[in-house]
C-alpha cells in the first residue's frame, strides 16, 4: 500500500502575497491566513507528494532536520485537512513504459 499524497483540494481558492498564503474553502469561506512556516508548508504541499516528502521539503526550506519539524508539520497538515483545504489521496500508479 502506497502512502497517500497531499493535494490542495479542488474547491480551495488560494493566493500568495509577500510570503503569506490566504486559502479558503469554496464557496463559503472563510479565508485562512497561513503565515511563516504555515505558508512554507502550504507551498510544499502545492508541489505535491506524500507527507514524508512534504516534511522533507519544509525541513530543507527552514534549514532544520526533518525529525525536528515532522511533528509540527504533521499536526499542521491535519488541520488543513480538517478545514477541507487539503485532501489525502492515493496517487494513481503510472505503469512503467513497455520495452517490448
Amino acid at each position, binding site marked *: 500500500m502506497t502512502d497517500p499524497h497531499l493535494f490542495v483540494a479542488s474547491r480551495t481558492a488560494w*493566493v500568495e502575497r509577500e510570503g503569506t498564503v490566504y486559502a479558503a474553502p469554496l464557496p*463559503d469561506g472563510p479565508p485562512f491566513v497561513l503565515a511563516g512556516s504555515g505558508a512554507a508548508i502550504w507551498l510544499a504541499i502545492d508541489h505535491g507528494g506524500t507527507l514524508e516528502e512534504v516534511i522533507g521539503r519544509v525541513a530543507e526550506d527552514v534549514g532544520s532536520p526533518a525529525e525536528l519539524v515532522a511533528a509540527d508539520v504533521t499536526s499542521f497538515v491535519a488541520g488543513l485537512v480538517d478545514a477541507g483545504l487539503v485532501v489525502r489521496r492515493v496517487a494513481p500508479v503510472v505503469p512503467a513504459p513497455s520495452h517490448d
Partner: protein
Amino acid sequence: MTEVVDVPLPVRVELAHAAVQVLADEAGVDVLHIKGPAVHPGLRNYVRTGTDVDVIVRPSGVQALMAALAAHGWRVETTFEAGSAFDHAANLFHDSWGLLDVHRHYPGMDRDPAHAFDRLWADRGSVELAHVPCAVPEPLAQSLVLLLHAARTAHPGGDHPDLATNWADRTPQDRERIRALAADTGATVALAAATGHLDEYHGDPEAAVWEVFVHGGDRLDEWSARFRAARGPGAKASVLWRSLQVNRYYLAQKLGHAPSRTEVAVESVRRLAAGLRAVAGRVGRR
C-alpha cells in the same frame, strides 16, 4: 493556521472571484469576470485597488445565479432596479468575501443583452483567479468594457485613465475592431460617449442618458433621459412609474433603519413634490 477577517482587500477580492465562479459552475450558469484582477495585464497602466467583484451573467441565468448566491450567504444590498440609471447590476455582500456586482447586462450593451453576452462569450478567454479558472472577455472586449465604464465615471481633472491604454494608445486597427464589437453589441453610442464623439449622436434617444453622464445633470435630467431612451410605450410607462417609486434601499440608508409604511408614504409625497418643483422651476426659467 489563523482564521481572520483582516485579509488584504485585493486578496479578498481575488478569492471572491473564485467563490462566485464555483457557485456559477454549480448553478450551471455562464459568467464573465470583469474589472479588478480579471483585467488583462497591460490594459490598466495605473494602480487601482478594486473593492468588489464584478461579473456579467448570461441573462437567461440571472435567476439561477441569484438563487445560488442567496443560498450561500450573499445578501442583496441593492436590487437591479435600484442600482443605477441603467437598471443593470445588483449589489450583494457576503461576510467572507465582501461586495459583488452582478451585471444582468452591461451599460451601453443593453439593447439586446442576450446577444451581447453571446458575443462576449464566443471569444472569451480564461484567467486563474486564486487558482480557479474564470472566464473573461478577450482583451479587446475588455477594452470596450473599460471604455464604457469610463464613459459613466466622472474623473476630475481630465480624461479617465482607462481611455489612454484602451483607446488613444491602441492602433487604428484595434480601434476599428473595438468599434466593430461595439456595433455588434449595440454599444456604438456608448463608445462615442467614452471617446468624446457623443455630439455626433445628438438627438438620438439612446444618447440622452449618456449626455447626463458626460455633461452632468441632476436626477430629473437622468429620469428624463431614461424616459426618452426607453423604447416603446411599455418601457416609457415603466420608467415613469419607477421614477415615482421610493427606493427602499436608499431610504433605509438615509434613515438608518428599515423604513415603515408611513415613512415610505411620506417619502413618496416628498419625492413627487420635489419632482413637480423641479419641473416647475424649469418651466419658469423658459
